[in-house]
C-alpha cells in the first residue's frame, strides 16, 4: 500500500466520489438522448486538451475544457440538425483528437511516456488538487440544481423529444445544456479517471441503473449512487494494489453492469 498523508487521502477520495457523482448523473441524460458517441468523442477531446495543456505548461483543466467545449460546439449543431451523418463526423473528430493527444504527449517536455503525461491517460489519485475539488463541487451543485429545477422538462424530453417540443418546450436549449454539462464533467474527471476511460464512468453506472427500474426518478437517484460506489471501491483497490485508479473504477462499474444484466428483473422471462 502506498503511504499517503491523510489530507491527500481525503482530497483524493472526495475527488473520486464527486467525479463519480457528476459523470454518472449526466450519464442518465447522455444515454437516454443517444448522445453516447458524442460524449465519447468529447472525452477524447478533453484528453487531447489535457495533453495540450501539459505540453504548453498551462493548467490541463483549462485546456481540456476548451477542447471539449469546442467539440460540443462543433458536434451539437451538426447532429442536432442532422445535416451530416453524425457517426461520420464523430469518427472523424474522434480520430483527430486521439492523434492530437498522442502528438501533444510526445511533445511534453521531459520524458514523454512517464509521470505526469501518463496520469491523464489512465488517471491518478495523486493528481487531484484543492482547486479540482472546488470545481467538482461547483459542477455537482450546478448539475443538482439543473435537475431539480428542470426535472419535468428533462423527463418530457427523455420520453420523446418531438412530443416535448410539440407541447411548447424549447428542447434545443436542454440538448445543448446536456452537451456542455457533459463536456464540463468529462474535463473535471479526466485527472482522476483518465482520458481513455472517463466515458465508461458516464455510461456504466447509468446502464446499470436502467437494468432495474422503470421509473425515471429512481434512475436519476440510483445512477449517481452506483457511480459513487464504483469510484469509492475503485479508489480503495487502487490504493491497496497500485493499479491505475481509472482502470480500477471502470472495472468495478463494468462488474456492476454485468451483474445488473444477470440479475435484472427486466430480463427475467415470464414463467
Amino acid at each position, binding site marked *: 500500500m502506498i503511504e499517503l498523508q491523510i489530507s491527500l487521502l481525503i482530497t483524493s477520495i472526495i475527488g473520486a466520489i464527486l467525479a463519480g457523482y457528476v459523470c454518472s448523473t449526466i450519464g442518465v441524460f447522455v444515454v*437516454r438522448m443517444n448522445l453516447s458517441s458524442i460524449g465519447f468523442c468529447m472525452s477524447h477531446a478533453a484528453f487531447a486538451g489535457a495533453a495540450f495543456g501539459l505540453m504548453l505548461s498551462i493548467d490541463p483543466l483549462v485546456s481540456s475544457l476548451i477542447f471539449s467545449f469546442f467539440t460540443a460546439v462543433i458536434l451539437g449543431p451538426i447532429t442536432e*440538425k*442532422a*445535416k451530416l451523418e453524425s457517426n461520420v463526423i464523430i469518427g472523424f473528430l474522434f480520430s483527430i483528437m486521439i492523434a492530437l493527444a498522442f502528438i501533444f504527449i510526445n511533445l511534453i517536455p521531459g520524458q514523454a511516456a512517464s509521470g505526469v503525461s501518463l496520469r491523464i491517460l489512465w488517471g491518478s489519485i495523486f493528481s487531484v488538487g484543492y482547486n479540482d475539488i472546488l470545481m467538482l463541487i461547483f459542477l455537482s451543485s450546478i448539475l443538482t440544481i439543473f435537475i431539480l*429545477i*428542470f426535472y*419535468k*422538462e428533462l*423527463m*418530457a424530453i*427523455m*420520453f*420523446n423529444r*418531438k*412530443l*416535448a*417540443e*410539440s*407541447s*411548447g*418546450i*424549447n428542447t434545443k436549449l436542454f440538448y445543448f445544456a446536456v452537451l456542455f454539462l457533459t463536456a464540463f464533467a468529462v474535463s473535471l474527471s479526466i485527472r482522476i479517471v483518465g482520458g481513455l476511460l472517463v466515458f465508461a464512468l458516464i455510461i456504466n453506472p447509468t446502464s446499470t441503473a*436502467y437494468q432495474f*427500474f*422503470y*421509473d*425515471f426518478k*429512481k*434512475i436519476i437517484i440510483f445512477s449517481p449512487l452506483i457511480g459513487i460506489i464504483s469510484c469509492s471501491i475503485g479508489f480503495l483497490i487502487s490504493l491497496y494494489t497500485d493499479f491505475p485508479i481509472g482502470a480500477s473504477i471502470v472495472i468495478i462499474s463494468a462488474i456492476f453492469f454485468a451483474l445488473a444484466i444477470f440479475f435484472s428483473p*427486466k430480463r427475467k422471462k415470464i414463467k
Partner: protein
Amino acid sequence: MVKKNYIISLGNIDTTYQGDKIPVINNINLKIEYGEFVSIIGSNGAGKTTLLETINGLLTYCKGSGLIFNKEILKNKYEIRKKIGYVIQNFDIDSNAPFLCKDVVMSGKTGKIGSFRFYSKEDWDNIWYSMSLVGMIDFANRPIGKLSGGEFQKILISRALAQKPDLLLLDEPLSNLDFSSRKQIEKLLNRLNKKDHITILMVSHDLSFIPSGCKRIIVMHKGKIILDGNKNEIINSKFIENFFKKEMK
C-alpha cells in the same frame, strides 16, 4: 358581413424537408374556424402528417403565411404549442423505457406549466381526469413500454388532453385501437368538440375511422388539398368512390 374567426389560417404554404428541393406539401390554403371538427384523409405520403407538423411549427414552411390563434406560427411557435395538443402517429417505444404512464401523461402539461414551477395538486387532478377520460386510470403506475399498441395510443391521447388544449391535432389516433376502444375514443372526441368546444383536426387514411361529430373532410393527394367540404358530400362523391375504391370495399 360577419368577419369569421379562424383558429387556423394557412395561405399558399409550401413545406420542404431539410436538404430536399421538392416541397412535401404544396400551395396549401386552409382555413379552420374555432370549434370545427375536421378530418384530413389521403393515402400514405399525401402530406397529412407534414401538414399537422407545419401547423404546430415542428416543421418550418418555406413559402406562404401561417396563422394559428391569429399569431404567426414561426414567430410564436412555443407560445402557440402550449395551446395545441398533439397526438403523434404511433411510434416504437423501448419495452424497458423508464417511464410510468402517469409521468408520460404529465409530460403533456410541462410546456404549459412553464419552467421554475412544480406540479400542483390541481395539475395532478387534471392528469387523473385525463387518464380516466380514456379509461386508463388503472394504468397510472404501469411502465409505458409494457402497454399494448392500443393502450399506448390511449395514453398519448390522454397526454394531449392533459394539456387542456384549444386545438387538438391527431395523427391517426384510432389506427391501433380495437373496435370497442375506437368507439370509446370516437365518443370522447365528439364530446370534447361539442361540449368543451375544442377544435379538432384529425388525420386518417381510412374513411371508416371518421367520427360522427366530424362535419368537414379535407382530401389530400401528393402534397396538395384536392377536396375540401361537407363530410357527407365528400364521402358520397364520385371522386372519392373512385379514389378510395379499395378502402370503400
